[in-house]
């Protein structure tokens, strides 16, 4: 039996500590199937839907330019970093939002560590 998605997201939150803002596992339809947030003002549904749209558009762009499959999108604003990754066969996305003070290398390392487990924990 696979691990529990929500537990994994909490572990990610714990690993990132104060830098963690939110994280969601998002379907290609833009709906979150599991989420964890440290920010009450975080508009989870809206961000999830928007990120799915970005990943879909990115995949289309990459396909048209012959750059292969999308592996990651990293969006940086003045106070937030949002990393989106396609999971498994690309039918699901993992979004991790952190404060801009977070170390990008650390964020990516944490995602590397949990990526396969997240995919394995998605109910089939």
């Amino acid at each position, binding site marked *: 039996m696979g691990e529990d998605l929500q537990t994994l997201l909490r572990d990610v939150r714990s690993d990132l500590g104060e830098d963690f803002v939110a994280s969601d596992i998002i379907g290609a339809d833009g709906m979150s199937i599991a989420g964890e947030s440290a920010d009450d003002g975080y*508009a989870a549904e809206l961000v999830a839907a*928007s990120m799915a749209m970005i990943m879909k558009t990115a995949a289309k*762009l990459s396909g048209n330019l012959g750059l292969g*499959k*999308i592996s*990651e*999108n990293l*969006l*940086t*604003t003045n106070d937030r970093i949002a990393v989106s990754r396609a999971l498994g066969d690309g039918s699901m996305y993992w979004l991790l939002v952190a404060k801009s003070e977070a170390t990008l290398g650390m964020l990516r390392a944490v995602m590397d560590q949990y990526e396969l487990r997240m995919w394995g924990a998605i109910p089939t």
Partner: protein
Amino acid sequence: MKGRLQDMAVADLVQHACQDRKTARVELKKGWLKAELFFKNGNVVHAAMGGKAGEAVFYELFDWDAGTFELKADVDPPEISITRNWTSLLLEAARLADEASGRFRADAAGYRARRDLLDRNAVAGTESVSRQESAGFEVFGVAGATAAAPGSAESASKDLVAVSPQELIDDLSSQVEGHQLTCLTQMRGEGLYWSASSKVEQEEMVEQVNQFVKLVNTVSQRLSPTSLEDNLLSTETAYLLVRLLGLDSYYLLVAADKQKANLGSMRHLSGVFADRLRKTLETRSG
């Protein structure tokens, strides 16, 4: 024999090796770029850089005005990619360099001086640049590149920081490892400066990237009330970095080969050059 290209230009190096009828390999380095030139019995027979080889590479190296070289004698070329006589090769390289330079790029030292002025301006903030120093501030075209920005004609006559966006784009391109493409444009599709390491359908690509950037920009507003800084898309084969200049919807796009690029330095360089480009565009628009 070792040295710096600032002290011995590629043309001089070639002349020296060919007149001495050398068989040798010269390794050239500029930033992260590494290239090789091979001589056989006093002729240039092979030039290679990053998977490319032949005369085109030689002409690119001819333009290097900084970096290091190391000549090792009696090294045979792995292949023959250049058959043109060395004097003819140098003449053609000079002709192409002149053609690419237009009126303003002939003096590489002048460009470096202008770039230094820009850097000093960034520090000093208010330091003025004389009309003489700013001579040469205008859009120019290079092979495979287009340049058109609003206000360029007016800008040439102003006492402003004298580095054109195209020069900066070329400079950035030469420093990004595994470089494929650098482009400065606006979300509304105006003001295009371009440098590509391979043939690209630029208009089609920019249109598609524009749509993507608009979407990312919109989404970033939902994520946080502050503004988007950059977006990095990683695919199986490439990094596609978009950095907003915070000026009139301009953004800088840099694409590089994922196998060759250093992600950290690519992001850093894009930040440095985005800042320089913003300053240049601000001065041009008055």
